[in-house]
């Protein structure tokens, strides 16, 4: 289920999602099993067997899937930059009100 807003900001304006490093990923699928938000999707018959299918389902600031990743193949944006971006958007929203 997708969150539509986070801290009052439209979720699609916040760039927060895992990025898969395919040179490290061994397709163990621990992340798929772990993530309750269905951010990942398995594509059994394709060369790239795992993709970030629903980035907007990813809970902003959550990096829990990367903590299950043995080969350390998942990375996330910088938290401080994301926080600043959220603050900036909220300021913009206030100035429009």
């Amino acid at each position, binding site marked *: 289920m997708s969150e539509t807003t986070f801290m009052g900001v439209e979720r699609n304006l916040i760039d927060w999602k895992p990025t898969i490093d395919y040179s490290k990923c061994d397709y163990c699928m621990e992340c798929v099993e772990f993530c*309750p938000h269905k951010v990942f999707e398995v594509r059994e018959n394709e060369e790239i067997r795992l993709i970030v299918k629903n980035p907007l389902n990813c809970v902003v*600031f959550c990096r829990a899937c990367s903590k299950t990743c*043995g080969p350390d193949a998942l990375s996330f944006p910088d938290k401080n930059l994301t926080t600043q971006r959220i603050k900036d958007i909220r300021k913009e929203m206030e100035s429009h009100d």
Partner: protein
Amino acid sequence: MIENYAILPCNGLDKCAGAISRELAIKLCENDKNEIICPVHFRVAEKKYNKIAGDHPLLVIDGCQTRCASKLAAEKNLRIIKKIIIAEEAKGHGIELNDNLRITDQERVLIDTLFNELNREEDNILSSSGESALSCEFDYETFQNGKFIFRIPKNGEVLYNENDCWAWVNENRARIGVTDYVQQNLSDILYFYPPEIGDEIDQFGELGSIESSKAVFEMVSPFSGKVISVNEKLEKNPELINENPYELGWVAELELTDPEGDKELLIGFEKYLEITKKKVEDANVR
């Protein structure tokens, strides 16, 4: 010194981090006062190690985030008193591990460093402070979903982030913990990885983590500030978070850097209750 510990390394041969866990465990046992638990043998000859595990505090050395040794400890109902993850430690020390299983000079440096750090930390525990600076009396709203009961404090002093962490704020200090939603999701919490006293934490930065056999939860700090106190009881009794994550299960206290600015990005009881109810409903739908 690390002494009288039972040491359970992952011993993995999948990657170098596993091989390092083995070397570090051997080094820690060279003083004759620690005992190694072989994870492979443990699976088939449980009796041999049950006594060692029962008589000594347990140090787990995981190679990577797959956490095979931690999962084995959980499977065998062993309480982890201390643990490290080699891959994380390597990152923290700026060391890139090689792709094969041979220990090179660089990995040897990491093993020596971790050996020294573990011993130093153990000595510091005896002198570290962990006194609480705040006294909090919570007034709860509760709601139930199936067999799960969720308590949410409704005191005006308590603020939340949308990552399921709470903060009781008193002027420029705050006590922080996780909510019932987190502990219910994780189920039995087996390990608490505390922040260090004196650490400067950004708002939404990591304030330690907690771990169950199901998952690891990184605590997202509602406030920026300096860690002035850590709930040391959780290191031996992380299940206190399951019992009550607001009272005995609080995590840490911060001296706040920018309380008013940080509050702009936090929510109060009513909004958090609404968000939690929605999350619980969504989880049921799946």
